[in-house]
C-alpha cells in the first residue's frame, strides 16, 4: 500500500450554510484509491451534507473538490455520476415490482429502435453481478429478495458506470451477520480494483475491520483523521463527541437506591434488542447512553408496546409487590415522550387544550358519559402555568407553537396523568439552549417528586447534568452500567469498550 502518494480524492474548505444553520464549516476529506475511508460523526455532525456535496445533491457555498489531481465541479447528481461518483443509499431505493436488471438500468435503459433492448440489459446486468460474486438472477423480482440481496443490487446499480468513488451510507444497519460478511467481501474486492471507498456508519467495530483511514466530523468541521492504525476506538468516540462543558449539575446524584419500580429481564427482539436486563428505582433519572443506532429508541418503544417483543418479562411494582405486566399495560402507566415530536408526540391541528387532555379525558366525564369542559380547561390552564408554556390562549393549535413549547405540551399531557415512570426519548432534540435547560429542569423536578425517569439523549452533557445512573447500550445490548458520578471519559470508554475487547479477542484468535 502506497501511503506517501497524494490522495486521489481531496475535498477542501467545503462550507455550506442552510437558513439558520451552518452545516459545513471548512470541512475537508481526503481518500485514496484502493482504500476504504470511514467518515464518522454524531448526528448532525455534517457527514451527510458533505456526502451530498460529493454526490451533487447539495451545492456548497465554498470549497473545492479534486479527483485524481483535477479539480471537478459537481452541480448535479448527474455530474457526480459522470465523474464516477456513486452512492449506495442507506434506505433501499429499489422499485420492488421490477426485476433486478430493470432496477439496475432504470435511469438509462439501453434501447434498440426506440424499444428497450432486454437482451442487452440482461447480459450487462449479468456481467456486473458476476463481478460482485453475486448469484442472483437478473430476472428475479426485487420485492422477493432479502434485505441483504437488495443491498447487493443497490451496489450493482452503483457499479454500472465503473465508478471511481463509491459512498456507502450505513450499509449494514439492516443486514444479518452473514449478509454483512458478504458485503465486506464485496468491499474488499472493490478496493482491490482500485476504487475509492467512503464508508459511513455508526458502528465502531466495522470501521476497524473494513477501513484503512478514518475522518471524524463534529459540528460541520473535520476534527481529526488519518490512518486507522493510529486510532483506538475511544479516540474516535472522543473526537466525535468532543470535550464538553458539562456545567453545573441540575440534580445531585442519588446516593442510595430506593424501591424497585420496574424490572426487565431477557427482553429481546431480532437483532435490534438482545437479552436486555435492568432495574429502575424510585426517584432516579437513568440515562440510556449509546450512539445512534444502538437500539435505545427500539428499547423504549418495546417497553411500552409500540414495537413488538420476541420474549422477555417486565415486572412493575404496583404499590405492594413486583408483578408481571404487559408492555401495553405499562404504556397506560408511563409518560412516554417520543423522539418524533411533530409526527407522534402531538396531534398538531388540535388545540393545546385538547392535546394536554387527550390521555386524561376519562377523568372529565360526567355521569352521562359527556365531557365536562370546565375541568378540562382548568387542567390545561394549570399545565400552561406550571410549565410556562407560551401560548396566546389554550385554544391555540399545537402545530403553531415553537419546538420547546410543543415539548412542554407533550410533558404536560403526561404530568396530568401523574405517572410514576417517564420514558423520554430525545426530549431536547431540536430545541434551543434555554428550552433545553428548561426541559432538563423539569425532568429533574419529576424525579425529585418521586417519579422515575428513563432518559435517552445523544448529548452527553445533558445526561451528565441530571443522571443518577447510566445504562450503556451498544448494538442492541446493555453492555455496562455506570454510576451518576461517572466522568466524561468513563462514559466515552464505555461506548468503545465492547469494540476494543472484541478487537483484542480477534487479534488473539
Amino acid at each position: 500500500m502506497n501511503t506517501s502518494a497524494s490522495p486521489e480524492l481531496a475535498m477542501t474548505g467545503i462550507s455550506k450554510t442552510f437558513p439558520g444553520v451552518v452545516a459545513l464549516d471548512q470541512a475537508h476529506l481526503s481518500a485514496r484509491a484502493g482504500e476504504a475511508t470511514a467518515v464518522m460523526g454524531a448526528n448532525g455532525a455534517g457527514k451527510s451534507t458533505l456526502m451530498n456535496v460529493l454526490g451533487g445533491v447539495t451545492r456548497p457555498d465554498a470549497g473545492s473538490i479534486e479527483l485524481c489531481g483535477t479539480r471537478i465541479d459537481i452541480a448535479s447528481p448527474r455530474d457526480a455520476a459522470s465523474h464516477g461518483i456513486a452512492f449506495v443509499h442507506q434506505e433501499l431505493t429499489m422499485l420492488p415490482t421490477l426485476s433486478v436488471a430493470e432496477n439496475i438500468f432504470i435511469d438509462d435503459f439501453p434501447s434498440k429502435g426506440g424499444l428497450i433492448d432486454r437482451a442487452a440489459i440482461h447480459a450487462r446486468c449479468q456481467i456486473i453481478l458476476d463481478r460482485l460474486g453475486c448469484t442472483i438472477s437478473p430476472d428475479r423480482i426485487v420485492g422477493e429478495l432479502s434485505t441483504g440481496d437488495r443491498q447487493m443490487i443497490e451496489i450493482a446499480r452503483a457499479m454500472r458506470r465503473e465508478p471511481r468513488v463509491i459512498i456507502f451510507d450505513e450499509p449494514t444497519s439492516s443486514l444479518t451477520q452473514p449478509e454483512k460478511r458478504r458485503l465486506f467481501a464485496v468491499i474488499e474486492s472493490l478496493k482491490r480494483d482500485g476504487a475509492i471507498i467512503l464508508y459511513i456508519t455508526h458502528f465502531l467495530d466495522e470501521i476497524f475491520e473494513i477501513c484503512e483511514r478514518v475522518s471524524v466530523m463534529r459540528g460541520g468541521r473535520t476534527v481529526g483523521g488519518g490512518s486507522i492504525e493510529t486510532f483506538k476506538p475511544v479516540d474516535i468516540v472522543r473526537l466525535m463527541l468532543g470535550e464538553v462543558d458539562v456545567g453545573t449539575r441540575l440534580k445531585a446524584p442519588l446516593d442510595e437506591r430506593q424501591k424497585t419500580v420496574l424490572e426487565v429481564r431477557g427482553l429481546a427482539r431480532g437483532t435490534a434488542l438482545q437479552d436486555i436486563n435492568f432495574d429502575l428505582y424510585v426517584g432516579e433519572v437513568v440515562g440510556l447512553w449509546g450512539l445512534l443506532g444502538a437500539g435505545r429508541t427500539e428499547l423504549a418503544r418495546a417497553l411500552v408496546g409500540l414495537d413488538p417483543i420476541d420474549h422477555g418479562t417486565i415486572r412493575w411494582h404496583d404499590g405492594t409487590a413486583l408483578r408481571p405486566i404487559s408492555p401495553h399495560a405499562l404504556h397506560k402507566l408511563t409518560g412516554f415522550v417520543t423522539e418524533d415530536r411533530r409526527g407522534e408526540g402531538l396531534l398538531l391541528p388540535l388545540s393545546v387544550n385538547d392535546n394536554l387532555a387527550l390521555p386524561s379525558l376519562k377523568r372529565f366525564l360526567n355521569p352521562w358519559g359527556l365531557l365536562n369542559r370546565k375541568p378540562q380547561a382548568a387542567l390545561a390552564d394549570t399545565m400552561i402555568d406550571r410549565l410556562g408554556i407560551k401560548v396566546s390562549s389554550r385554544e391555540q393549535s399545537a402545530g403553531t407553537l415553537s419546538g420547546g413549547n410543543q415539548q412542554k405540551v407533550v410533558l404536560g399531557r403526561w404530568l396530568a396523568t401523574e405517572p410514576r415512570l417517564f420514558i423520554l426519548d430525545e426530549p431536547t432534540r431540536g430545541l434551543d439552549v434555554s428550552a433545553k435547560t428548561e426541559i432538563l429542569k423539569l425532568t429533574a423536578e419529576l424525579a425529585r417528586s418521586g417519579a422515575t425517569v428513563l432518559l435517552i439523549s445523544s448529548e452527553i452533557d445533558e445526561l451528565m447534568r441530571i443522571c443518577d445512573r447510566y445504562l450503556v447500550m451498544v448494538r442492541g445490548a446493555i453492555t455496562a452500567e455506570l454510576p451518576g458520578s461517572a466522568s466524561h471519559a468513563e462514559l466515552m470508554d464505555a461506548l468503545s469498550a465492547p469494540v476494543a475487547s472484541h478487537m483484542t479477542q480477534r487479534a488473539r484468535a
Partner: protein
Amino acid sequence: MAHEATMPRLSAGFGRHARSVLILALALGIATYLWFYAPSFYRTNNLINVLVQSSSLAVLCIGMAVVMIGGGIDLSLPANMALSAILGGFYMAAGGSPLIGSVIMLASGTAIGMLNGVAVAYLKMIPFVVTLATMTVLNGLSVWLTNSTSVSGFPESFFDVMLARPWGVPTPVIIVAVAIFLASVLMSSTLLGRHVYAVGISPKAAEVARVPVSRTLLLGYGLAGLCAGLTAILLSARLGSASANMGVDSVVLDIVSAVVVGGVSIYGGVGRIWAAALGAVFITLLSNSLNLLGASFYLSLVIKGVVIIGFIALDTAFRGRR
C-alpha cells in the same frame, strides 16, 4: 420559524372562507334560477318535501362523516342500507311487528358496519378496498334474496308512525334532527368522539397518547352501520317497500359529495356532523333543482361529480398539507 408558524393558520382561515363563499354562491345561484324558472319550488309543501327527501341522505352522511373524520371511508353504506331494509322488510311483510322489523334493520346495519370495522381496524385492510368489496357482496346478496323484486306489504301501523306529521313536521325530519343532535354531542363531547378525531389526524400519535385506536375505528364503522340501518327504516317507510335498488351506486356519490361539501376532510380529523347533514340538504336541493330544470339524470351526475372535485380541490389546497 415565525413564518412557518403563522402560515397554516392564515391559509386554513382562507380555506374556510372560500368554502363558505362557494357554497353560498352556488346556493344563491340555484335559488335565483329557480325563482324565475320554477317558482313552484318555493311552495311550503315542496320545501318540506325537500327536507323529507334530504332526511335519508342526511342520516347516511352522519355515518359517513364519522368514518371519514376517523380517517376512513365506507362505500358500502347504501348497499348496507338496502340489505338491512330488505331483511327487516321480509320480517314485516310476513306479518311481523314494525317495531321488531325496525330493530332488525338497525341491528343488521350495525353488524355489517362492524364487519367493515373489524377488517379495517384489526385486519389492517385498506378502507376503500374493503368497503368497495363489501358493497358488491351486499348488493349481490340483496338481489339474490329478493330476485330483484321489491319487498312490500308492510303493516299499516309502520306507515302511520313514519308518515305522520306531528305539529306539521314529518316524522323523518324529527328523527333526523334528533340523530344529528345526538351524533354531534357524541363527536364533540364523548370519549369516543374525541378519539375519532385524534385517530383521524394521526393514528400513530393517537396510539402514543393512549387512544385505543383499533376499538375507536371499530366503533366508528359500527356507528356508520347503525346510520345505514336507520336510513333503511326512513326510506322503506317513504317508498312503501324495500329493494336492492335503494342502494344504487349513485347514492355513494351523493353521500361523498354531501359530506365533502359539508367540510369533512377526506384526509381525516376534520369535520362537523351538522355541517355534513347540511351538505346533504344542499346536494338534495341541487338534484331537485336540476330535475325541475329538466336536466337529465346523467347531466346531474356530471354536475355532482364536478362539485365533488371542486370541494376536494379546496380541501387539498388548504388543509391537505400534512
